[in-house]
């Protein structure tokens, strides 16, 4: 399976290395060469320097062949724009993205995007622990 990951954040790098070790074909895009170092030595997929809201960078990372696109930069708006750009232009079958701001996450879920909101998830998990203890 071909996967393109935008943003070599902690979660981006973790996903990239995990998926790569399972045998997936992985391309990672980040605008910061320092972040790409997170991939480590064992990662033998492809890493590209560039911004993800740019069609050129996405094409270089072979988005046209990808089955999955994951947008996990640290900027909500970049993830939202990249995911929608990829959906419109390249019709990639599976798209996932991270949005920290719960309100923004809720609003954009209306547009049918697969949004993961770590803020909501963390709060829910903690609440659950608390209610279990009580």
């Amino acid at each position, binding site marked *: 399976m071909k996967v393109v990951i935008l943003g070599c954040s902690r979660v981006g790098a973790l996903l990239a290395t995990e998926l790569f070790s399972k045998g997936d074909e992985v391309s990672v895009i980040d605008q910061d060469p320092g972040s790409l170092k997170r991939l480590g030595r064992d990662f033998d997929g492809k890493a590209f320097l560039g911004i993800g809201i740019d069609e050129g960078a996405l094409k270089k990372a072979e988005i046209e062949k990808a089955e999955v696109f994951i947008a996990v930069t640290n900027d909500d*708006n970049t993830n939202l724009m*990249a995911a929608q750009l990829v959906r419109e232009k390249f019709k990639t079958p599976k798209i996932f993205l991270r949005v920290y701001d719960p309100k*923004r996450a809720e609003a954009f879920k209306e*547009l049918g995007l697969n949004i993961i909101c770590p803020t909501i998830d963390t709060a829910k998990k903690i609440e659950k622990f608390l209610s279990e203890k009580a």
Partner: protein
Amino acid sequence: MYVIIVGGGQVGHSLARLLMAEKHEVLLVEKDPARYSKLSEEFGESVILGDGAELDTLMDMGANRADVLVAVTGMDQDNLVICQMAKILYLIPKTIARVNDPKNEEIFQSLGVDATVSSTRIIGSLIEEKIDAGMFIPLLALKGGEVEIFQTQLSSDSTLIDKKISKLTLPQNCIIIAALRENQIIIPKGDTILKENDTIITLVGKDAKDTFKKLFL
């Protein structure tokens, strides 16, 4: 009209001034505190500190009663998301985004932004037009360049002058929307006659652009 402008840089600042002079109700939104305090010296309560993509800011702005929202920050992804949030949550009738990378014009419009303005593109075509014809000034590009508004001054040998507009053979998808003569603005009708030195404003479709230019040369 109530207009919200997000982004208090050069573009937002001048736009706010311009619209206020025309007696519109304007609210400027800036997220950088230093820039905000400078702007508030000039605009007072008409500027607020906040991130235009956040729901709380949108609420503070009174987004529910806005007629137009214009997002003119320097980041395309921010301008897009701000316009989309305004549409999804507040059904703002008209959103306009500045597009810093002209390549993004098309995608913005397919994602629901009503109009895009790309200064890079306008300046680019200004330079191009200068070399090209010497007298076509592109004022505005709509629908990602599908339709453009041009300003042109009519010379003495123009084929358009001294004839009724209804007798002119203009290409399809091309309408003369106004003529400026001295200090007068003329909205042309079929029997209007254009004169030498009139400045005319024309709406031209992409496919009609070449034919349109030839008419004036």
